[in-house]
């Protein structure tokens, strides 16, 4: 097990490689006028990132290496997503999603 200075060194290096990608575009781009195509491209990035983060989790793609359409994560996502679109409430969606997931765990067990 690594501890002591080795672990501290690892933490510092991890801090550097996570901070720089967060810092560089912000400092570099915030001071200048971006071309229209780049602004339009960046406009699509949020929806693309969120969807790319979510779908593998919902389908369990990372763990199982095969897709399963009957996972509670995915089934619960449907009403939760509908609620989110209707209400646009972040806190409400989080609470409702938790309640649905808890319920699904009881019913599907």
């Amino acid at each position, binding site marked *: 097990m690594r501890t002591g200075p080795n672990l501290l060194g690892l933490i510092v290096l991890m801090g550097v490689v996570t901070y720089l990608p967060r810092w560089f575009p912000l400092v570099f781009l915030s001071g200048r006028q971006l071309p229209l195509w780049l602004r339009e491209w960046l406009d699509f990035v949020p929806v693309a990132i*969120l969807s790319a983060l979510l779908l593998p989790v919902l389908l369990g793609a990372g763990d199982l290496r095969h897709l399963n359409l009957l996972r509670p*994560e995915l089934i619960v996502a449907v009403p939760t997503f509908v609620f989110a679109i209707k209400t646009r409430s*972040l806190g409400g969606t989080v609470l409702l999603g938790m309640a649905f997931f808890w319920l699904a765990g009881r019913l599907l067990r």
Partner: protein
Amino acid sequence: MGGGARDNVTTIWEGTKAAWPICLGYFPAGLAFGVIAQKAGLSPMEIGLMSLVVFAGSSQFIAVSMLASGAGILPIVLTTFTVNLRNMLMSSVLAFQLRGVKKRWISLFAYGITDESFAVNLNAFRSRDWDWRRALMVNHVSNLSWVGSTILGGYGSKFVPQGSFGIDYALVAMLLCLLALQLRNGLDLLVGAISGVLAVLISLVLPGGACVIIASVIAATLGLVFRKKGRSSREAGS
């Protein structure tokens, strides 16, 4: 300067109000990370330090499991870098909203950019009266809940209510809502669908966090192409 003080209170209050769903999502994830890190041999102090310095959930999970399996520093740092490279995209998007803000504040702001704070702040910037101070508040309140919950988890699994009240789903539900908030039209929906499917397909062959950034870049580029096509066909029709 009574007005200034009241301004500060409003900023703190509104930032915290916007951040609480993030905290709710981070809390169980942070506890879980703390427990895993403790099992890998890290003390609560070291866990808190890592959360404070790195502040990247998925990278921290991966790093600790690599540590436990005896991986060296270099592979862990490289994996962390790849998994968090997507922050470059988010930071580029937010740059537009932070024009004219002083460099030192921007440098502090950069520290707090995560998937969740990014999406919450961007949505607030787009839909209501939002400024970088409130956004900074969102970042740091979220950060506090992450650091605190990981340390708590580091004191042992006795604090972790395993699977109770569906708390494991909080982060997923939050991402679902953040995605819903980003969908403004059919083209957004199309780009999201393409990106999600691509991410799933890529994750089947390429483990780690690379799938998110590759899928996002391809889908956003396709979105740009579709928008151009839509425009030129509309011009041809009229």
